[in-house]
């Protein structure tokens, strides 16, 4: 155990990839990268490389899924077979189905679906290369793609994880820290409304640590929001100014 800890963090709190405790990995977002999709985004978040495409509002197939009072949101999170060290079977795994569901439920509060009865908005996410925190990065790209598709939204959704590594709370857990660390907590926030729309945890945290970890992740979400906002500004307002 001691051996692992020295690998994950030095005594003065420098992490295995050289970051400080409260430092995010590099994030870059490009908006409108796909011709066919109504909205799209590409995100690089650390070593994550993820594409998100949005189609709709459009007719629902199969028809029985349609809701006469509201539009529906569907989401597919999928990892390419070459996105991880060992080839991944291309069929959707149980993990991917669960992540698709939590991402859908994280985006849903932000999307004004009532305006589009009997239609569907499809969000397709393809993880081309996976690193720790791929569900958060995927969610960040998906929210930007929804905005790019011109779908009315109450707020953006910004996601970031925090965790516990070598007994300390850290922001934005990378792959090594996720595998060997003590806790991983992905969080998604609607930054202007202060609403948390995704919260998961696996690991072990004391109640005080739970609070700190959540607050740390929320600070990360707000920083991610600035990157998302800037990316949208760059496409829709020249010079990044309104």
């Amino acid at each position, binding site marked *: 155990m001691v051996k692992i800890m020295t690998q994950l963090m030095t005594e003065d709190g420098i992490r295995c990839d050289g970051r400080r405790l409260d430092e995010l990995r590099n994030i870059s977002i490009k908006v409108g990268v796909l011709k066919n999709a109504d909205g799209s985004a590409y995100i690089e978040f650390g070593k994550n490389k993820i594409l998100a495409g949005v189609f709709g509002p459009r007719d629902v197939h199969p028809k029985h899924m349609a809701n006469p009072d509201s539009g529906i949101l569907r989401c597919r999170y999928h990892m390419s077979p070459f996105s991880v060290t060992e080839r991944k079977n291309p069929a959707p795994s149980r993990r991917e*189905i669960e992540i698709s569901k939590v991402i859908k439920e994280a985006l849903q509060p932000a999307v004004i679906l009532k305006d589009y009865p009997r239609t569907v908005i499809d969000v397709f996410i393809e993880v081309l290369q996976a690193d720790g925190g791929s569900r958060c990065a995927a969610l960040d790209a998906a929210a930007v793609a929804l905005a790019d598709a011109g779908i009315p939204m109450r707020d953006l959704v910004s996601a970031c994880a925090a965790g516990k590594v070598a007994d300390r709370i850290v922001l934005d857990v990378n792959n090594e820290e996720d595998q060997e660390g003590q806790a991983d907590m992905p969080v998604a926030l609607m930054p202007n409304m202060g609403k*948390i729309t995704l*919260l998961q*945890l*696996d690991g072990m945290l004391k109640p005080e640590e*739970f609070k700190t970890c959540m607050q740390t992740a929320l600070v990360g979400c707000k920083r991610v929001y600035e990157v998302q906002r800037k990316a949208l500004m760059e496409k829709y307002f020249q010079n990044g100014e309104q």
Partner: protein
Amino acid sequence: MGSQILDQLKRDKILDLLKTGKRIDGRALDEQRPLVIETGVIPKANGSARVKLGDTEIITGVKIQPDKPFPDLGDKGILICTAEILPLADPNAEPGPPNEEVIELARVVDRGIRETEMIDLHQLVLIENKSVIGMFIDSSVIDSGGNLFDACSYASVAGILSCSVPKYEIKNEVPVLVEGVTSKPPIKTLPVSVTMARIGDYIIIDPTRDEESCMDARITITTNSDGNICAVQKGGSDGFTAEQLLQCSEMALVVGRKIRKQFEQLM
């Protein structure tokens, strides 16, 4: 689509009652339904439990058998929890491959027991990197009355606690069953899952089927015997504020202690 109108009417009624501090079945907002646990209900399984949480009913069986360890985890035994909703449990359940709700249910139940480290998996190793004991904890929902997450989790924990682990001897590097010798499973801690729903501005514990049909969001928090928070899953199509989530984590710890006492009686 008529059910959507019904759901709206139910929501109005439930929310009106909540405003006066009441719930549709007369419980307090932070009151769980009675939990009834019966163990040893399937003698052919190594451990089993039948759990009733209000109208929700679960049967869990534990099967234990020698297995090969996962390639990167040669020093640990295998623990796998599953959950399914039987077609006889729910008018909306369908036979066939599990849908996303069922997959989430199974994964959240598994995560709660795995992340609390309920079982010392190192003690389930027969030959390192070659042969280990596998524990398979399979839960079936037989009557669906809301809050399947907690009910399946309680049934899984009760099933594990009731287990007799068979003894295996190694002969020529192959595990051989020793007849008539069993031991208790290596329990380290007792996980308790507590699910809460938000309806409007109200947080209620252990939602019924009707309450779930009109909730805004849901949160499941699993704690261990030391009062640590080990697994969390938010669900539902809306969110929570940070204050509401901290309130939920405190409720999970308080309610967790009561349920844990009930588990202790099974040990």
